[in-house]
């Protein structure tokens, strides 16, 4: 009996090993996409920008997502300069509204606004990989596996599809084999496709509600020699969220 169990276990490992080895780039990215786009989520995070003059700027925000990231609401809590500002993104960030509390004005933004830096940080709105962007906007090609940050990783090249208006012509993603968390992403600029423009490092992975979650993100801008660190202070998955939360009415609260 124990021998049978051992054999079954061995077969399972071998099958899963063979299976994982045979994953295409597209399948790996699909698994990453499924992992990061949970049904609903809430998070509270800090974002600390380290400037070229070594000054720090710290922001605290709350974020809610629904329908696997299709709906997203971000509200800034600190600092005082941006307190109350909020961004609503619907249809995988194809529709964006921004609320400015000082003028009580809601402005509809076009998708090009995703290229702008989030509060002057090294993250742009499109870096957040909202919704299905990895799947819809890029072609995935699996490269040779590599060790990265001490973990066995799939290495996948994402090449921007023709006609897609996104800042990066290419991305290289290292995805941990054991949990499909992307731990390093290199972003390549259109003007210099051979040079890495920015690098995102995701670490401090914790399993929250059964979902492996990177709690720390560092975006390094190689051109400007600046970096932004984002840390999740609180995360909840699969919580009850009403659709009315993702409306202009709630944006202005």
């Amino acid at each position: 009996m124990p021998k049978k169990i051992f054999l079954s276990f061995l077969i399972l490992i071998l099958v899963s090993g063979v299976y994982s080895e045979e994953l295409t780039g597209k399948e790996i990215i699909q698994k990453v996409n499924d992992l990061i786009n949970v049904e609903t989520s809430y998070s509270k995070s800090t974002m600390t920008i380290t400037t070229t003059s070594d000054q720090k700027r710290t922001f605290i925000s709350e974020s809610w997502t629904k329908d696997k990231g299709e709906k997203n609401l971000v509200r800034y809590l600190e600092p005082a300069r941006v307190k109350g500002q909020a961004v609503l993104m619907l249809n995988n960030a194809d529709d964006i509204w921004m609320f400015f509390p000082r003028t009580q004005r809601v402005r509809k933004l076009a998708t090009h606004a995703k290229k702008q830096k989030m509060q002057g940080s090294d993250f742009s709105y499109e870096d957040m990989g909202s919704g299905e962007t990895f799947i819809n906007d890029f072609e995935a090609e699996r490269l040779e596996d590599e060790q990265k940050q001490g973990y066995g990783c799939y290495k996948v090249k994402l090449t921007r599809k023709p006609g897609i208006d996104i800042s990066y012509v290419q991305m290289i993603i290292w995805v941990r084999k054991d949990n499909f968390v992307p731990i390093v992403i290199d972003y390549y600029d259109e003007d210099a496709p051979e040079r890495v423009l920015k690098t995102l490092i995701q670490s401090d992975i914790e399993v929250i509600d059964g979902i492996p979650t990177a709690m720390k993100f560092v975006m390094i801008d190689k051109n400007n020699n600046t970096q932004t660190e984002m840390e999740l202070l609180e995360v909840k998955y699969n919580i009850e969220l009403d659709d009315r939360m993702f409306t202009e009415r709630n944006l202005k609260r």
Partner: protein
Amino acid sequence: MKKKTFFICAAGIIFFFLIAPEARGDVDLFGYYEAQVIGADVKDHFYQLFANKLRVDLKADLSSSVSFAANFDYITYHGKKEWNVLDFLSSEITSKIPEAMRPLYVIPFSDRHFLDNAYLRLSFKPFDLTLGKQQISLGTGYVWNPVDVFNIKDILDPTYEQPGHNAVRADVPIGLGSTLTALYSPGEEWKNSSKMLQFKTRISHFDFAVTGIEKTWVFHDYTVFDPAQMNFQELPDKRKLLGASTAGELLGLGVWAEYAYNWMETTDDFYELVVGTDYTFDFQTYVLIEYFRNTLGKNDHRDYTLNDWMRSFAQEQKAVSRDQVYMLIQHPATDLMTVGMSAICSLSDHSLALVPMVMYSFSQNVDIYAYLNWNTGKEGTYFANTMGNGGFVRVRVYF
């Protein structure tokens, strides 16, 4: 008496927030202090006006369905506190003004303190009700908003906050993407009160709104002084507006448009139209262009009257010329500094104002803004070089 009232209010706020913090509950206290210096080269003099503004905001979520917000502004002015509008106008216009009336065209900058906004928002399941002095922001235009009869933005600084208006407002959501808004801003009587109805919805990637407004529009005849009012003669006129606005995306560009037709009871009907577009390039440069037509404005600068100019300065009408274009380009020069330039061009009289700008994040809650203003048009045009080239520097500290 006013000073006394202010100090009583200030003492009350200090007591409430410092002495009795336990009574504060979930009340947020925030705001900013703003120091600003405006400089202008006028008739061989370089004048300076300094302004200090303290804005204190309160916001309290008293329950999940009741919130209260207010802000109090205290502003002091120093330096050149009286500006004579006639210094900026062409001799063709000023020569017609009787000598005795000339001192009347001085705009004073007097210290002031006021409750800018104070409102209660009651959120019922089917609608939100907002009662009190509140900002009313209408339209999709960046610089000009034809459907907004309550505010006129400063073309040099169009994103600056607008004053509060006393009103009762109901926002009724219809489904997830549509809202019906009814607003009543009371005057002395029902007939001279402002009423607004707006329906806003979403179709594909576009927002659409249809707005109807009735308002008594009070503007002045700046050639006739009314001794009883100790002011220029008031010319109230009933204004009925029907407007439409949209904002969305076309071929990757942000696009917006706004149109309003105004039926006037005694003066000529007119319309206003705005069309705009913007784009952010991969290298982070942001560009915006907006066209504005108002048929109240004149096609030829030789037709501009003293009333046109004064109404424009007093923000009673949006522009003296009929057609104008606003262009903006901004780029983050460093991680802390954004540089940009706006150009405002009157297509009617071919004058142009250039406004280079720098925005610098000095520290977490301190921003510095510097704007220059260079008018290049010939005398008598909208952006004439006699309008006072200069600019301003503003330092704002948020708390």
